[in-house]
């Protein structure tokens, strides 16, 4: 995962330009990219999930010579991409149910194995709800069997498709329509949460990684790497949702970056249950900077705000930074 050219002028490593050599050119900046999720779909403006899915699928297609079968859980991605006859998918794509993307993908993988089609690869994808909640058991089964599937979770931290309700991935204090910002403890409660990348690692599967739409080149590289491997692989991508988070459409990338730079969303890779690489934060950003620009956390700020809760969230970020050793220069 190395990018020798650094682009300090934008404060990020995002690279989508034509200055790099062919080796480092992103999939998305190539003229022969597949446009697997093509334009014209019905995602909201600034949808992180649409962006993430496009990069993931094009990278997977590039890595497999265009031989990918995609399986999708119910959720925003499925709904905004498929109303017929306007399907946006330009690869073989299937949606079955909310909680079964993993086992449907397993079925595809075994069918291909039975047919001797080792050249065709399978990618399953779903939202955080489909992944950490309703599809969790089946996903764990897929991990445990080490089925030959790359599963990608697009984490926007709530059930967005049904109108923004709390999921097992909703962060503490966040307002959703089932965790209203009223009463004594406004917003989602402070729970242990459900850290799916860690749970995936505990299965000892060949590859687990987190990624974010704030670093699309890194996302592409991780997909490319995942597709070079076999067995169960898991990729957890943070995808801000302007509608659910109450954020400006043009700030999706900025939000994703702040989530990482504050320490709230650590970015790393693990192989066979062991972390092999962590994306360093050059300068830790206080969580306020990230939280303040989101309406779902509005109740924490201002005259009626709750600095104690902000502190508690800061503590989570600090704990992540210590646990994953996030501070320092990127190698």
């Amino acid at each position, binding site marked *: 995962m190395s990018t020798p050219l650094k682009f300090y002028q934008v404060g990020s490593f995002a690279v989508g330009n034509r200055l790099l050599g062919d080796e480092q050119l992103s999939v998305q900046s190539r003229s022969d990219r597949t446009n697997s999720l093509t334009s014209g779909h019905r995602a909201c403006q600034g949808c992180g999930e649409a962006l993430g899915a496009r990069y993931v699928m094009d990278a997977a297609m590039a890595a497999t010579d265009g031989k990918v079968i995609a399986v999708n859980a119910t959720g925003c991605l499925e*709904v905004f991409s498929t109303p017929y006859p306007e399907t946006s998918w330009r690869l073989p794509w299937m949606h079955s149910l909310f909680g079964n993307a993993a086992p449907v993908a397993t079925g595809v993988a*075994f069918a291909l194995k039975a047919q001797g089609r080792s050249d065709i690869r399978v990618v399953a994808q779903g939202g955080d709800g489909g992944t950490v909640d309703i599809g969790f058991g089946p996903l764990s089964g897929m991990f445990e069997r080490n089925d030959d599937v790359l599963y990608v979770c697009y984490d926007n931290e709530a059930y967005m498709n049904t109108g923004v309700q709390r999921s097992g991935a909703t962060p503490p204090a966040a307002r959703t329509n089932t965790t209203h910002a009223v009463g004594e403890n406004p917003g989602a409660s402070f729970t242990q949460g459900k850290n799916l990348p860690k749970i995936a690692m505990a299965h000892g599967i060949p590859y687990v990684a987190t990624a974010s739409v704030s670093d699309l080149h890194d996302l592409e590289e991780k997909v490319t790497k995942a597709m070079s491997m076999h067995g169960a692989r898991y990729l957890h991508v943070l995808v801000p949702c302007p509608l659910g988070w109450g954020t400006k459409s043009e700030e999706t990338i900025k939000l994703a970056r702040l989530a990482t730079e504050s320490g709230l969303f650590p970015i790393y890779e693990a192989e066979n249950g062991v972390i092999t690489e962590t994306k360093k934060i050059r300068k830790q950003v206080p969580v306020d900077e990230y939280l303040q620009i989101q309406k779902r956390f509005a109740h924490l700020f201002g005259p009626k705000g709750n600095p104690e809760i902000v502190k508690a969230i800061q503590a989570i970020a600090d704990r992540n930074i210590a646990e994953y050793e996030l501070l320092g220069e990127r190698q």
Partner: protein
Amino acid sequence: MLQQIEGSKAVAETIAACMPDVVCAYPISPQTHIVEALDELTRLGKIGNCQFVNVESEFSAMSVAIGASATGARTYTATASQGLLFMVEPVYNASGLGLPIVMTVANRAIGSPINIWNDQSDSMSQRDSGWIQLYAQDNQSAADLHILAFRLAEELSLPVMVCMDGFILTHAMEEIDVAEKELVTKYLPKFTPRQVLDPVDPVSIGAMVGPEAFTEVKYLGHFKQLKALEIIPELSSEFEEVFGRPAAGPDNYKGLVTKYHLEDAEVVLVALGSVLGTIKDAVDNHRKNGVKVGAMGITSFRPFPLDEVRKSLKHAQKIVVVERAFAPGIGGIVSSNIRTALSGIDIKINTVVAGLGGRPITLKSISELVDRALYGTLPDFSFMDLDVELVERELERNLLTRRSGPMAENLLKDLGTR
């Protein structure tokens, strides 16, 4: 070749002869022996390159089947009871998508109270799931119907459930002619899917469909079921030509129903599944005494052969439907279908719920049923061999005290301590 073999094993060997590409399963009694045998057959390389997938739930079993079938694989799974209920969501999904999966349901009661024994409330609960449902009367037909099921499923692009009574059939040793692979290959051509996930010709499957076409998609599912009513008789007679016996058993009529002494029958007993064996014995006994009794079995419950049922039953004077499940709050399930078939014809139809949760259906009880039907003393709806006193004592306890405790446990306690 004729062999003394357990029903489950005969089914497993027949499935193997059908050469599925993917078999996925989750264990539940009384289905277990089928999938255990298939695991072994797969490992021994008896099913070519077939992949046997041990999943972590029935929900995943049907989901794996969906993915495999949509990728062009001939796909099989088996379940029962709670397992069938656990996979209901993907069961509907499979039929809605039109995927030709074949599934055995080893019929077993549904809890609560938890009960592993046989009745048909599991598959009956899925009668409107869009799957074709074929019911086997004995183990020869249980095995054979699976071959027909694959052919039918793939011809129509619709999933098929083959229902066989748990334990009574799955665990019974009988002399069975397990179909030879050469003959199966002759009868069941290579699977050519109508829709397939393929990078060469990418399609989207399972997209959102709004009011503009949803009714039409559902109509086509219904249409295919009706089409099955035409195709099953064809496939059935072709089966007989290839294998030298009908797939649905000796009294087979067009693969849709079975008829036993119906020609002049005044009283006709109607049923699905293995209970027809006992019913036929009762018919024989009554016939010896000069009573004109007959039996009709329903092989294809979905689609329901309205015409064949009507033609077979319209000359009867009394019909008794023996049901292995019922619809609480109204009564018979099969009977209401029979009534639809006979609409406009004035024939007395009695519904008798029998053999719930494994209660034996004895020849004596069936014979009494015929007598009572003849004398006109059978209620419209009744439960065979119901322990009325046991029920009444519980109702009394309910009246005596508000906190009368858990019902099922009360009954067991009552039985155990009297």
